[in-house]
């Protein structure tokens, strides 16, 4: 039904356009629309339910959302559709400019800041808030129930539901955290820290391990009280539970904060006849040998007194500087690592178990106690005033505002119950537990002026602004300095705001922007779940996965810290590597596990586009996918995501199914010959080809499937370019606006904790205009966001409870 109709429309449009072009130059917006658009989008045909002859581009009025959509379609050159006469670039630009000017003028006159619904602290924010409130580091994943996965950012109010299981876990966490923080005696528990099987332990495992060590791990562990703890090491076993590498003696060091606790020697003591190598489990050796192979690591345990607080527990082997005789063998990976006992190979650590405290001591001096106990009562009479001081100080920080007497009294009631049951500390613990259970802590509820009517925009109070800022930049509660400025009412003044933003960005808590914003914006979470095909990539190990993640984190972190222009995310000529990643990137002369900055002159690496993390997260386990990469580029960097694929799309045929090997490019031709695929794939695939020189793990390659890589690519607007260098150049020059706009929109969405909508786009453009003189540097963009209407303003709640929808189709996660 639809297709003939559309063709008719196009034909009509062409005729109309030809007729009018002779009499008028397409300069006025009205004329351009009439020339190129109205042929289909008119009151009679209403293609796409749009009649452009009925609305006036000079007066956007109440149709501003519609005009934003039109502007977006023009930006991405989606309209007019391919095959129809299209305006030249100047005409496109002039039409877009006039529409946006009208929209921006209207937004300035009558701002529509939107409204952020009540936020619940998410798991990350909760853990950070506990860290900043109580100097206590907790693992939110252990304490807080699984969050329902949403689209876009995990701090979007709309996905922060309050299910019974979640609420229960917050209440339960309050009990655990208050006990840990006050440091009363703790239940003895054993915490296990495991090293994945695919982590290779042949080298020094990171900066915090001693020189001359090999493998193992460092556990940063919070010892809740002064007491006796056990530290036990379990070594790797193969599938039948035979220990690996027990043929010869090896030495294992156990350290606490770098100091040697004990050195063990293990291996080489199996008695009697061994099973034939690599047949253990299938063929039995002598009983003594069999027993040894199962139990040799039983005694790798120490029992030590430890002072409360966070300490590094490290386990590592002493590196043996010997070269194996004979022909150098490839490293054993995959199946061999799981099934072979590798008798004369090197043993590896499987897990470290930390247990305790076993004598129930009480913490005397810990960072948490120093933070909590701002006073110590000398007499019984001094207790109440001191408790009040402690709890009201904590409540002000936790509730992120001055607290009322009634609120303090509530906490004091819990203090008194605890005091009656036990001692002063127990009283404080009970008060703290109540505080951490409070809706005032767990929810971000903003105050509204009562004098204005429903649905009216207003400037958020400086106290709420402080919370917005701290959750934006730190994913945590405001510190005293920020809160003080807010209470004084000076935070809204431009100079103070700018100074606070600069200070907050310099603070190391701003690493939350890397861990939360950047990781989600770049969709790097997927890297965790990638399982590369062992046949295609026998070299892959967990060390490489870790290095990939670390590179991107360090890179984005450096960009923020050095306050670089955001275009440098793409255009930078440097990145960070350690020896494992350098080997992957074929960079010579990089030794050791610490990451260092390296500069590139080859136009291959440097910036996000050459980073293995992204290239791997957008590939399949056994091959690259120009589709996934093209989609990622469109969505993440160009801000023009294609719609999700229709259901029941068949997989590509296995390569070689017809007896011949084909390049991915050839195989994807099907996408562009099938009309129902072509609409979207004509935009994704040609873009994704530009990264074909990187294999599915981001390693550089000249050929793929036996033929030289063809990395010629093109954009939906027809721009042609070649390879990653071409793509990089394009993004920082001719298409820099696309990138800056996309980046700004995503950062704004993260900052306000809701999806951006058409009404936010004037603010996005304003931020871009305001920051262009400063080369779009991080601090400039962040400050402009802080000043923008969506961030610094809100709207009083509508009279009816109407859900504030987010535009999910624009933020849908890519499905794999």
């Amino acid at each position, binding site marked *: 039904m639809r297709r003939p109709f559309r063709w008719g429309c196009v034909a009509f449009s062409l005729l109309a356009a030809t007729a009018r072009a002779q009499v008028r130059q397409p300069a006025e917006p009205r004329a351009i629309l009439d020339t190129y658009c109205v042929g289909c989008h008119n009151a009679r045909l209403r293609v796409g339910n749009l009649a452009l002859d009925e609305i006036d581009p000079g007066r956007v009025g109440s149709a501003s959302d519609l005009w934003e959509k039109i502007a977006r379609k023009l930006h991405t050159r989606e309209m007019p559709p391919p095959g129809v006469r299209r305006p030249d670039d100047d005409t496109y630009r002039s039409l877009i400019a006039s529409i946006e000017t009208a929209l921006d003028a209207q937004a300035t006159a009558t701002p529509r800041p939107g409204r952020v619904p*009540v936020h619940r602290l998410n798991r990350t924010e909760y853990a950070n808030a506990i860290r900043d409130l109580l100097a206590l580091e907790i693992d939110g994943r252990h304490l807080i129930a699984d969050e329902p996965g949403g689209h876009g950012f995990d701090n979007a109010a709309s996905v922060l539901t309050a299910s019974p299981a979640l609420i229960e876990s917050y209440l339960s966490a309050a009990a655990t955290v208050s006990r840990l923080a006050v440091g009363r005696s703790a239940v003895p528990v054993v915490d296990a820290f495991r090293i994945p099987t695919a982590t290779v332990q042949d080298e020094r495992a990171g900066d915090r391990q001693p020189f001359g060590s090999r493998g193992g791990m460092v556990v940063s562990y919070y010892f809740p009280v002064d007491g006796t703890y056990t530290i036990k090491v379990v070594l790797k076993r193969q599938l039948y539970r035979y220990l690996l590498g027990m043929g010869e003696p090896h030495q294992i060091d156990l350290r606490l904060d770098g100091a040697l606790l004990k050195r063990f020697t293990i291996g080489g003591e199996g008695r009697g006849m061994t099973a034939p190598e690599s047949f253990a489990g299938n063929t039995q050796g002598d009983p003594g040998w069999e027993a040894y192979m199962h139990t040799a690591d039983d005694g790798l345990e120490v029992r030590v007194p430890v002072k409360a607080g966070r300490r590094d527990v490290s386990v590592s082997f002493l590196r043996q500087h010997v070269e194996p005789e004979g022909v150098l063998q490839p490293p054993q990976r995959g199946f061999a690592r799981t099934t072979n006992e590798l008798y004369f190979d090197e043993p590896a650590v499987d897990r470290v178990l930390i247990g305790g405290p076993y004598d129930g001591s009480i913490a005397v001096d810990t960072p948490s106690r120093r933070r909590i106990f701002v006073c110590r009562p000398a007499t019984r009479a001094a207790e109440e005033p001191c408790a009040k001081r402690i709890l009201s100080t904590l409540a002000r920080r936790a509730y992120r505002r001055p607290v009322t007497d009634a609120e303090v009294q509530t906490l004091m009631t819990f203090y008194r119950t605890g005091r009656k049951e036990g001692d002063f500390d127990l009283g404080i613990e009970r008060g703290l537990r109540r505080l951490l259970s409070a809706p005032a802590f767990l929810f971000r509820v903003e105050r509204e002026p009562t004098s204005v009517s429903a649905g009216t925009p207003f400037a958020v109070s400086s106290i709420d602004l402080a919370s917005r800022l701290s959750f934006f930049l730190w994913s945590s509660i405001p510190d005293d300095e920020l809160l003080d400025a807010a209470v004084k009412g000076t935070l809204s003044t431009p100079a103070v705001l700018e100074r606070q933003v600069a200070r907050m960005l310099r603070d190391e808590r701003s690493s939350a922007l890397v861990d939360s914003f950047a990781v989600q914006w770049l969709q790097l979470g997927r890297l965790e779940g990638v399982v590369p095909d062992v046949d295609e990539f026998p070299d892959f190990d967990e060390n490489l996965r870790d290095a990939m993640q670390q590179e991107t984190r360090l890179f984005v972190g450096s960009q923020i810290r050095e306050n670089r222009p955001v275009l440098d995310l793409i255009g930078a000529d440097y990145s960070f590597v350690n020896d494992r990643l350098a080997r992957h990137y074929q960079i010579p002369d990089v030794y050791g596990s610490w990451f260092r900055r390296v500069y590139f002159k080859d136009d291959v690496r440097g910036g996000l586009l050459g980073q293995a993390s992204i290239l791997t997260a957008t590939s399949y386990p056994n091959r690259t996918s120009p589709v996934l990469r093209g989609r990622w580029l469109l969505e993440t960097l160009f801000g023009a995501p294609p719609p999700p694929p229709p259901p029941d799309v068949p997989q590509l045929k296995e390569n070689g199914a017809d007896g011949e090997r084909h390049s991915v490019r050839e195989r994807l031709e099907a996408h562009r010959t099938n009309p129902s695929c072509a609409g979207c794939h004509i935009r994704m695939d040609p873009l994704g080809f530009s990264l074909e020189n990187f294999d599915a793990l981001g390693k550089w390659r000249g050929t793929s499937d036996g033929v030289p890589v063809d990395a010629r690519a093109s954009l939906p607007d027809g721009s042609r370019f070649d390879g990653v260098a071409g793509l990089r150049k394009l993004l920082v020059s001719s298409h820099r606006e696309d990138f800056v706009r996309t980046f700004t929109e995503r950062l704004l969405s993260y900052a306000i904790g809701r999806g951006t909508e058409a009404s936010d786009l004037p603010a996005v453009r304003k931020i871009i205009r305001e920051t262009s003189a400063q080369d779009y540097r991080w601090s400039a963009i962040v400050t402009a966001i802080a000043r923008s209407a969506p961030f610094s303003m809100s709207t009083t709640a509508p009279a009816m409870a109407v859900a504030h929808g987010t535009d999910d189709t624009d933020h849908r996660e890519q499905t794999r």
Partner: protein
Amino acid sequence: MIVTKKAIPRRTMLRGLGATLALPLLDGMIPALTAQSRTAAAPVHRFGVMYVVNGMIMQNWMPSAEGAGYELTPTLASLAPHRNRFSVLSQLACVPSPGRPGGAHAKASTRFLTDISPPTSETWLDAGISIDQMLANEAGKHTQLASLELAIESGETAGACDVGFACAYTNTISWRSANTPLPTENDPRVIFERLFGDSGSTTPQARRARIAQDRSVLDSVIAEARGLSASVGAGDRAKLVEYLDAIRDVERRIARAEEQGARELPVVDHPAGVPESYDEHVKLMSDLQVLAYQADLTRVVTFMLGREFSGVTFPQIGVPDAHHPITHHQQEPEKIVKVAKINAYQVTKFAYLLERLAATPDGDGSLLDHSTLLYGTGMGDCNAHDPRSIPILLAGGGVGQLRGGRHVRFPKETPLANLHLTLLDKFGVRLERIGDSTGRIDDRVLSAI
């Protein structure tokens, strides 16, 4: 005993306390609970699976006689006290689909609840949703946890185990979707905390102390939230109402658990970690399973006594040999004896679970009356890794829908999937087919009628 008008009969009181022992954190709503009517609600139907690995010595397992008069074989001997509470189901088949060879172990565990043969791959996971998860989808709406996946061995889901197959296939039997294997948990401490929070113990004293605290926090928080929601606009109120609803839902769940009201609960202290002995470990996990059912924290539990392909040794019963290698016994009598010992030993663990469930009152009956339990493995004869006739026990009363005490021999190579379809029916989940099912089994042989 002095009985005043307002006093609660001691019996009721004890029931109340009994239930609260096992409740999660916010279990303190005694006034709300005692106000509840105590009419027996419709019993909750639980599902449980205990999975053993590496096949069996079938001649020691399978009774020769059929029907109610069958003889308990050496492997089944420990189940004698529960003879009327379970049936032996024979000649069910768990045969991989044609065209997908290899991976006897990976397929045994994967097919056991999904009836799907995974493709040979160390990276691409593709099975099907398992029947426990089909049930959990529905039952999970009413409980704190949709399901529990317990195990004795720890296992990551990365890497390759059975030749050519990802470890996920041998490490779990529960699949939330075709591509999502559910990791199992072998640390009772983690299970305890998932069920009971940070509560230290399930002893009455520990519980009572916490109840008082929990209740006061809960009351105070509800009051605060009410005040807050009165002060905000309508849009925000919706979110706070959602929050208040969540708290009330916790109360309701407590009330429901209260209706299960039972007196005796095994006292379980907050476990520190994984016990050293296999016996202790299995017992503790089973106790937690019973507690979870009893307090209605979950209705669906799978429990793997090993992971498929396992090489665990059993020196405690005189088998110091790794499990999998000796199951390829090559007809050596000494090895056959050892494998049979392992088989019988593991059945005693099932007997313990049945005993605990039978001893735990639940509404008008016991937890065992209100459960459907499967015991078995995806392979029959271990030497040949033969999936054509696998060992299966079906236990529990199935809320009046199952009767035990028989040995049922199905026609040769009746797909296990057919039994699955019939069991799903009993939970009100009606499907036309699952995996490679060819129909339903004749329900008359299972049902109580």
